[in-house]
Every structure is written in structure tokens, then in C-alpha cells.
């Protein structure tokens, strides 16, 4: 009898360890220095639960990684969890019933109460069910400036976009690349969208991307934006790098004066041990008054798996990712903002604090990823990429094409 109990206990124990020590492959495209450091925080926290984080990093950018993720899921070889951006990238996978719903975890962990801003959870909700875990907020609307570069050109660090544009010729004279811009099209589009929101304001932004109003897109307000984009492409002439972090590196090393990039760029400044305010300056909303930030960012989706042990591990991972400690550790490394308002960010640096203040003021707006389909995004990417590289295309022409895309957008 005693032996029996011992055996039972032993088997129960073994069963428990087996259930706990589950390998879960997580695919993502967080491969730059700051991003890798941030992923390590997730891996650490997940491994601490007795499971094992199998890293499925796919280099390049989201554009490279997403097709691989999608074809693995649709191809019947799903990973344990995968990154997508907030928004519509996984919409059809959810529709097709390939993704798992997280209603139970969400309820148990009171996601509805802790996730801030609320719109993030809405983005994860499809027909009343929750399908993803938002893990961070990435605001695109930043202008990063190299203090050293302006010092070298004997210029004060500008406080907004107009001042920066005005400094352009002087920077050139001093042998400094005014604007660093990676060649990949999503970076160009990002800059353009920043110009819309910062210079055109919230209403214009929403009329274009939410209402898909082709008339507004062809109208005079947008014409101003295209004029500004024309300035931007002049300033970016000579920036020959491909990747965003190479562009950031130009700012870090004072080869370039500025870059308009999302807050993840901050991770690179941190890796390079630079201090906000001293070595570099950050201008949310490109330094324009009443800055808004978009609540884009990354979410983790969980494909449906047949293995119950893995399904259980998925729930653990979802829980871990949203825990306050992981949120802080991850976002500090990545340079993004946490998705819950109840965490302690006293260790955050100046720039992130600026962002958090805007977040607190409620000046948030949906990102383009949440408003338009990847198909439309690709079309805008192609147009912007062409416009920024081909000086023979006038802002007028580009605007006409842009309006046509918005007119057929979905």
C-alpha cells in the first residue's frame, strides 16, 4: 500500500514536471541589439516558469518574417506563439480559425482592467473574443537628434520639424547628413505618416486612414504634407543605409543629425550607452504642439495547437508577458512603453517619460497597421519609396497617386 502511494506520488510528480517543462517556439523579428536584449527578458521570465522558450528569430524586418510565420501557420506547422503588429495582420488567420482564443486567460488576469489604453485590447478582439496579447506600445512619432552633430555645425538643437528643416543647408555645409533614413520602404512610409499626424493633425490623419477619404487625400491639407515630405526627401539625400538601426547608428555617431523613427530607436541609443538630453534629444510628435502618438506595437498571437501540454504553456506565456515585472523589464530594454498603466517606471529615461505623459493625457490614436490592410500598406510603401528616391516625381504627382490608393483602400 505504501509502495503504491509512493508510486502514485512519483508519477504525479513526474507528470507535473513533464507538463511544466514544455518547449514553446516563439517566432519574432526582434533581432537588433536593443530588441534582442528585450527578448531575453521574455525568455528569462518564461523559462523561470519551468518551461523553455525556443527562440525563432527571423532576421530582416517584419516584411521578411511575416510571410514565413503566415505560411507556417497556414501550412499546418504552427509555432507556439508568434509576433505580429497590433492590428490587422493576423485578421484572416483568426477568421480561418487557425488562432486560439485567449478569453479564459484574459478573464482570469483581468486584462480588460489593466491594459491601457483600452484600444489595444480592442485591436486583439475579433467578434467578441480575444486572440492576442499586446506586449508594448510603439509610438512612431519621434524625431531623434544628435546633439554632437548640431554642436559640430554650430547650431542649437532644433525644437521642432520646421527648425530642423531650416538647419538643413547648414548641416550639409558642415559635412553632416541632415536626415538619416533607411532605404526599406516601411521606414519611408513611417516618416511620411509622422508628418501627417504631426503637421496635419489628428483629424486629417483619421480622415485619411480611418475614413479613407480620397477627396481629403487629394486636398490642400495633404498638399502641405507632401510639400513637407519633399523637404524630407531633400534632407535624406545621401543616406545610403538599408536598415533602420544603421540609420540610428549614423545619428549615434553624429554622422547624421536626425532620424524620424519609432521609440524602438531608443534601444539603440541605450546599447550605445548614450544619455537622453545629453548625447541626444528626442522630440515626440516631431516637436509640434499638442503631440499625439499612435498606439502601434507588437502583439503575440497563439496558433491553435493540438498538444495539450503546449496549449497550457501558451497560457503561461500569455500570463508571463503581461505580468508587471516582465512588462517593465522588456519595455525598458526595448525602449517602448508598457501596455499597462499600473507599473512602476521610475527607472525610465527622459524620452520614455515624455511618451508616458502623452499616453497619460490620452493623446493616443490608432496606428495605420490597425486602420488599413497590409495590402494598402504595401501600396503606400511602394509609392513612398518611389517618391523619396525619384526626385523627378513632383509632390503633386505623388499626391494624386496617394489619393488613388486611399480611394480603393480597404
Amino acid at each position, binding site marked *: 500500500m505504501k509502495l503504491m502511494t509512493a508510486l502514485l506520488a512519483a508519477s504525479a510528480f513526474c507528470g507535473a514536471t513533464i507538463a511544466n517543462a514544455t518547449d514553446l517556439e516563439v517566432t519574432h523579428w526582434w533581432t537588433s541589439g536593443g530588441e534582442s536584449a528585450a527578448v531575453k527578458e521574455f525568455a528569462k521570465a518564461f523559462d523561470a516558469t519551468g518551461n523553455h522558450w525556443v527562440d525563432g528569430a527571423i532576421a530582416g524586418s517584419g516584411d521578411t518574417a511575416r510571410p514565413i510565420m503566415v505560411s507556417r501557420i497556414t501550412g499546418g506547422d504552427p509555432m507556439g506563439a508568434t509576433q505580429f503588429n497590433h492590428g490587422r495582420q493576423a485578421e484572416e488567420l483568426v477568421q*480561418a480559425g487557425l488562432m486560439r482564443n485567449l478569453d479564459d486567460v484574459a478573464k482570469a488576469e483581468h486584462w480588460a482592467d489593466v491594459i491601457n489604453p483600452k484600444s489595444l485590447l480592442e485591436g486583439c478582439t475579433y467578434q467578441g473574443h480575444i486572440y492576442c496579447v499586446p506586449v508594448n506600445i510603439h509610438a512612431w512619432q519621434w524625431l531623434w537628434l544628435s546633439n554632437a552633430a548640431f554642436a559640430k555645425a554650430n547650431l542649437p538643437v532644433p525644437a521642432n520639424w520646421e527648425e530642423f528643416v531650416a538647419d538643413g543647408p547648414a548641416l550639409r555645409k558642415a559635412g553632416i547628413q541632415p536626415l538619416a533614413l533607411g532605404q526599406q520602404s516601411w521606414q519611408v512610409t513611417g516618416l511620411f505618416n509622422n508628418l501627417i499626424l504631426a503637421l496635419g493633425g489628428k483629424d486629417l490623419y483619421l480622415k485619411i486612414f480611418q475614413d479613407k477619404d480620397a477627396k481629403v487625400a487629394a486636398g490642400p491639407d495633404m498638399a502641405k504634407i507632401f510639400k513637407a515630405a519633399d523637404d524630407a526627401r531633400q534632407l535624406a539625400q545621401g543616406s545610403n543605409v*538599408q536598415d533602420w538601426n544603421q540609420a540610428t547608428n549614423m545619428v549615434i555617431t553624429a554622422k547624421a543629425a536626425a532620424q524620424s523613427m519609432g521609440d524602438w530607436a531608443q534601444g539603440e541609443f541605450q546599447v550605445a550607452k548614450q544619455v537622453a538630453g545629453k548625447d541626444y534629444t528626442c522630440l515626440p510628435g516631431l516637436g509640434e504642439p499638442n503631440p499625439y502618438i499612435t498606439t502601434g506595437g507588437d502583439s503575440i498571437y497563439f496558433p491553435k495547437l493540438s498538444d495539450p501540454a503546449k496549449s497550457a504553456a501558451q497560457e503561461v506565456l500569455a500570463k508571463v508577458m503581461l505580468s508587471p515585472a516582465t512588462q517593465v523589464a522588456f519595455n525598458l530594454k526595448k525602449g517602448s512603453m508598457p501596455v499597462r498603466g499600473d507599473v512602476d517606471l521610475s527607472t525610465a529615461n527622459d524620452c520614455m517619460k515624455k511618451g508616458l505623459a502623452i499616453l497619460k493625457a490620452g493623446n493616443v490614436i490608432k496606428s495605420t497597421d490597425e486602420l488599413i490592410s497590409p495590402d494598402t500598406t504595401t501600396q503606400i510603401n511602394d*509609392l513612398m519609396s*518611389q517618391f523619396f*528616391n525619384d526626385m523627378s516625381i513632383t509632390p503633386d504627382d505623388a499626391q494624386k497617386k496617394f489619393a488613388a490608393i486611399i480611394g480603393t483602400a480597404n
Partner: protein
Amino acid sequence: MPETQRPSQLLRNLNAKVASVPMILTAMFVFVGGTLWTVLYSFTDSKLLPRLHFVGLSQYDRLWSTARWIVSIENLAIYGVLSLVFSLVIGFVLAALLDQKIRFENVFRTIFLYPFALSFIVTGLVWQWILNPDFGVQHIIRGLGFSKFVFDPLYNQEIVIYGVLIAGLWQGTGLIMCLMLAGLRGIDEEIWKAARVDGIPMWKTYIFIIIPMMRPVFITTLVIIASGIVKLYDLIVAQTGGGPGISSEVPAKYVYDFMFRAQNLGQGFAASTMMLLAVAIVIIPWAYLEFGGKKRG
């Protein structure tokens, strides 16, 4: 006696038929089936997942009104024509040089051909590095005192496709040279003797006698180059990523990007169907000439 009966047609050669099953499956299911499938779905509005909701020709309408597709086609046309012409010319000239009974022929041939052993990814990365204005050729020549010298094909959208061409030719001309050399060696020595006795200069002999005699080799080479051109993808991905802007995009990349990145399968299928059409226009006349006539044999 069984041998008085004519055996059933199906069982005749049974082993050969069984052995051909993988081939038949591949031909019917993958090549025919797959092609028909793609063509069929190019008339749908499939997004991330294929679905049979037909929208007529609207994917094609959109395709041909998309600037990037037009640029892709133009690039392919420029790259295609130039790569065809230069491959043939360079390949032939190299082969003719090697055919002069020179010493160290093996060494030269080895050097001309080794790039062919390398992948397009490797080729693209190497030439990206050599053509990088901050380190490569431009940097060197500026270092020699020509400070205004500009050679940045990969960063100038007007000429980026030529930068790709340099790499493509570097990789592929060795093969063409080999084919041409094989063709030259296949020509009767006596033709050369006859030309010499008749006092025809060497270049004239090549142009008016040898090249016309090598017509089959040229046609085969042409088809090989042409079918390779349509598949141009890896090189672009590794060397330029389609940039700057969209100036070095090619159809194969358009297809890949729309199928997988933009989550618009229908558009990708429409584009790949157009590629298939283009290939068919090149291949069918050739196949007809090459194989149609031999049927009787």
C-alpha cells in the same frame, strides 16, 4: 499458350509505368495541376488565404495600373535584353579567346567559370560590398585623387539595374562561355583550314562562318539565359532588396511580396500568371522547333 494472346495495353511495359509514377505525379499534379490552380485563383480576391470568390479580371487591372509592376517589367526588360546580349557576346568572345590554342587554358577557364558555382545570394552580397560607395570602387578611385568620382550604381535609382547586371554577368557568363566553347570545339577543324586557305581573316570567319554554324548552340544558350532571367530573384534580394525605392524591383519579387507580405494572394497569382505567359511566349516556339520536328524519329 499465353504468348498467342496479345497482352493488354495497360499491362504491357508495366514495370516502366510503375517506375514512372513519380514522374507522372510530378508532371500532372505539380506542374499541370499547380499551374492551373494558380491561374484559377488569380481571378479571385484571395487575401491571406486562398478562397474561390471570383472577381474577374480586376486583379489584372490593378496589376497593370500599379507603378511597381510596371517598373518591375521595365527592369526585367532592360536586364533581360542586356544580359542576353552581353552574355552571348562576352561568352562567345571568351570562348573564342580560349579557343586560340593558348597555354594555361585550364587556369583561365577555371577562373571564368568559378562564379557559376556560387549562389546568387553570395554573388549579390559580394557585389553589394564592392559597389558600396563608402568602401568599394568609388572610395578607392576617390582615394587616388579623383575626389569628384561618382560610381554608386546601387544607390542611384537610374542605374541600379546595371549594378545588378554587373553581378549577374559576373556570375553567369562563365557558363555561357563553356557552352560556346563546347560549340566551337564541335566545329570541324577543316572549316578553319579551308578558311585559311581561302585567306579569310579570322574575325570574318567567326562572324560569317562559325557563328552561323553554331546556331543550335546559340538557340539553346538563348533559352537557358531567358529562362534564368525570368527567375531573377535571389540576386535582387541579396544585392539591393529592390531599392533604392522601387527602382530595382523585378516581377518575381513582386509576386513573392504580394503573396506573402502584402497578404494579397490574388494579386500575387495574377502577377505570376503574367510571368508564366511571358515564359510561354518564349518557350513554346522554341519547343516547337526543337522537339516538334523530331517526333517522327
